[in-house]
């Protein structure tokens, strides 16, 4: 007789006071001061609790967290290649399904979480992520977005905003804005075309209670969920390390980042400001945009204005692409 697979039912928290005090992402790692992704790890770990298995595709949160054979994770954690976080998680989830069914593992299905950077999610890791979503594995894919390949020295990724100076998109005489492309829309990639997915959300380290609840809600679904988390990177974006939360909040106030939920086809928006500030206010606080002219800021503003009409939904890019200019 097959044994029923029992899955998570994690409670929502109403305030910071209800967030568990217990740490599962413990001190001793080597992330930078003010690291947004490290804060993501701490909050996601609080959301899951100990009955979890985390997968860490190569990236900052692999290299800076697990140096010298040490790791700060109090739950089972496994490195994956930057390419295959979604696939390794699929294998682990499939294994737990069959082991529980056959009575070889006794207990609730662990929360299986992939903690992938932007490259490991929507660039080199896109195929494995998409297929995990498509096949319907009961696992959560977290994209911690620091908008670059930061671990290797801040190279451009598909999540890097237009105009950013990265070590692969340096501004120069022929390319004054540095980064010429607009970013891929990660949640839209998941929402569009994965019938097994019921829950996709975006959240920010600036709003930890919201972040924890979205992670828990995703985990509670008996199937794959995707959570896209904004994680400012002082070293890559070039702002003072004490301003991580300030930068994250300003991203929301300027519309550079929007917190929303897509649940069974319905969008709900969170933390929407009464009035959006100009994107220049956000960009001028980061040295990666320091080289831009007013024309470049206007181009970014046009893109953001168009996107804010319906965040999370497809838009026609209102500015010229690199081959059209």
């Amino acid at each position, binding site marked *: 007789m097959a044994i029923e697979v029992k899955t998570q039912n994690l409670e929502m928290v109403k305030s910071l006071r209800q967030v568990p005090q217990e740490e599962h992402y413990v001190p001793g790692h080597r992330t930078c001061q003010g690291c947004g992704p490290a804060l993501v790890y701490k909050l996601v770990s609080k959301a899951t609790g100990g009955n979890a298995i985390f997968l860490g595709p190569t990236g900052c949160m692999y290299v800076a967290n697990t140096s010298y054979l040490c790791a700060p994770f109090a739950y089972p954690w496994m490195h994956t290649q930057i390419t295959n976080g979604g*696939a390794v998680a699929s294998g682990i989830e499939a294994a737990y399904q069959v082991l529980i069914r056959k009575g070889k593992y006794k207990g609730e299905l662990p929360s299986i979480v992939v903690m992938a950077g932007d490259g490991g999610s929507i660039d080199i890791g896109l195929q494995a992520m998409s297929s995990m979503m498509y*096949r319907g594995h009961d696992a959560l894919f977290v994209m911690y977005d620091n908008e670059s390949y930061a671990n290797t020295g801040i190279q451009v990724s598909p999540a890097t905003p237009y105009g950013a100076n990265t070590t692969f998109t340096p501004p120069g005489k022929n390319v004054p804005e540095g980064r010429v492309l607009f970013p891929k829309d990660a949640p839209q990639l998941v929402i569009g075309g994965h019938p097994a997915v019921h829950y996709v959300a975006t959240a920010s380290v600036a709003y930890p209670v919201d972040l924890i609840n979205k992670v828990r809600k995703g985990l509670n679904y008996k199937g794959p969920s995707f959570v896209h988390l904004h994680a400012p990177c002082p070293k890559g974006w070039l702002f003072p390390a004490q301003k991580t939360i300030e930068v994250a909040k300003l991203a929301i106030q300027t519309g550079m980042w929007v917190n929303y939920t897509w649940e069974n086809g319905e969008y709900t928006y969170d933390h929407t400001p009464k009035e959006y500030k100009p994107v220049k206010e956000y960009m001028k606080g980061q040295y990666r945009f320091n080289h831009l002219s007013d024309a470049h800021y206007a181009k970014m503003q046009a893109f953001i204005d168009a996107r804010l009409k319906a965040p999370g939904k497809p838009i026609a890019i209102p500015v010229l692409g690199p081959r059209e200019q």
Partner: protein
Amino acid sequence: MAKEVFYSGCAAAAYGAKDARVEVISSYPIRPYTGIMMELSKLVANGELDAEFVLGEGEHAQVSIAYGASAAGARAYTGSSGVGVVYAMECYSPAAGGRLPCQMAIADRALDPPGDFGSEHTDVMSARDQGWIMGWAESPQEVYDNTIMYYRIGEDHRVQLPQFCCQDGYFVSHIPGKMQMEDQKAVDDFLPPYNPPHPLNPKKPINHGPQIFPDQGSAINVQRAVAFDDIEAVISEVVTDYNKAFGRKYSPFVDEYMMDDADIAFFIQGGHARTARYAVNHLRKKGVKAGVSRLRFMRPFPTEAVAASLSKVKAVGVIETNTSYGGVTRGGNIAPEARAACYNLDNRPIITSFMAGLGGEIVTLNEFYAMAKVLSDAVKSGKANNSYWMNFEKEVLDTHK
């Protein structure tokens, strides 16, 4: 009850996996190995095998799914052919370094270009240094047997390594042969359930694969090397037990045919060995003292067993069935290893590469006779070329006159 069946190598692999009670299977289509997954998907759909059948989106994902499942504590099975095998290349070292004993069935296939369905061993031979166990079967029976034996070898706590369980595409994978399938209970007695020492389990958390710094690397490499030191003893045990349990006659590493009084030998792995034995029968009638030494494991390369076998003869022709462009013999990858295995012998034989069985071409009896002529000449003259591309070189073509 054991039963006699008439199965292709693909079906033999699938039923070997079923009798090994694999728990997670990851698939992706590519000829010729596809038949294995077609068979397994039916067994799962019919409820004859309780396993998760995961549709990988490519071979890279297939291997990732399999080693992930293995890390979680499930017996995992996957497979591929040709370009699919090399597409997954990134994932082989993590699986071996993680000591995750999943199994990958290989029905080998020539690489592109050009598109070629034929058998050639180059695909998975390219992965021979990634830390996986690797060996070729020569018949559906041996495919079935190896599938079961490899799991016990790989999952042994002295070993803990993944396995490439290989068969020649088409020549073995698609030609049915008479074989015996064993009683499930007897297979269960031979192969205990997978019991990994450190699964990913929230009740006993471990961290798996943290980053290291260069001075910590060699200590980890040496652990894998030690596993390969211990593995020959494990293989001998497992093959002996299997022979005893099921009445087979495998020698663990090198399967010999008429080697004891031979002057020349064909050294070969996989299905072409069967043609080689027919050729030897004919050659013997003509007074040529030829023998066959068939390699059952490429990794670990059985250095001592190979040296002991090849030292019986004066000249050895390695039928490569794989390429190593620009390699030391300008032939394939097996002759250099055979030569190195014999290096410390007082009377080492002449060893040369015969480039045959490439791109799916049959190695014909006539080709074996031509090789025998080259080897007999080498015995007389005391020398031979490093390699001969069969049917393209004067020395070989002259033998047809």
